[in-house]
């Protein structure tokens, strides 16, 4: 994803990689071990996103946080994605202002998939979803 000056002005900073799995509990140990991650065992249910999520933090500085995402029911947005292939799903960036970021995305003709909503996984901080013209699903998280 090409950064523009507007993105940098908006405090764009990489936050995590989202990875869809059938079961967080079943995948946790293998993920933590194979990528040297620490897991606190906390799994959060976000009914608005119809998913369970859990964060795995890197032991080594500079490595990314991994978010495992598990669909809750067949109506979950990631249920069919999991059925088709699962795996790598999205990148998440923190920004100062979602409105400013979405304006910048719109100017690049990216798809605004979901407007800003509070997310339980981030203690009510707002997120928005964008799909770029280069076919990358991006979650933006407001600081």
């Amino acid at each position, binding site marked *: 994803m090409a950064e523009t000056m507007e993105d940098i002005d908006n405090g764009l900073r990489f936050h995590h990689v989202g990875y869809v799995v059938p079961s967080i509990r079943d995948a946790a140990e293998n993920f933590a071990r194979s990528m040297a991650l620490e897991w606190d065992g906390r799994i959060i249910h976000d009914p608005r996103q119809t998913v369970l999520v859990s964060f795995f933090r890197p032991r080594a500085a500079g490595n990314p946080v991994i978010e495992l995402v598990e669909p809750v029911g067949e109506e979950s947005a990631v249920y069919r994605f999991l059925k*088709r292939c699962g795996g790598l799903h999205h990148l998440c960036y923190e920004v100062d202002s979602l409105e400013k970021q979405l304006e910048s995305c719109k100017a690049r003709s990216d798809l605004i998939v979901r407007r800003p909503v509070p997310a339980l996984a981030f203690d009510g901080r707002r997120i928005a979803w964008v799909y770029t013209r280069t076919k990358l699903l991006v979650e933006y998280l407001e600081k």
Partner: protein
Amino acid sequence: MMASTIFAQVRRISADVFQVPAERITAESSPETVEGWDSVQQLNLVLALEQEFGVQFEPEEMEQMKTVGAIVELVEGKVGGQVRA
């Protein structure tokens, strides 16, 4: 633009994106009936539709894209097509 033409175009694009034969795409086709239709592939479909028809979709419109027929209606509404019989 004729509504039947819009349907034919949407059908062709859907078949390309979901990688199924065009004959299997009907107005009733949905994520439940088309194996390759998941949330990410739906976004690829929206990108392809925007490019083909020179239109833009809002997030609320994308949420209405539950069937091919619903997609055709949305496109018709943007390009001024007639309602398909």
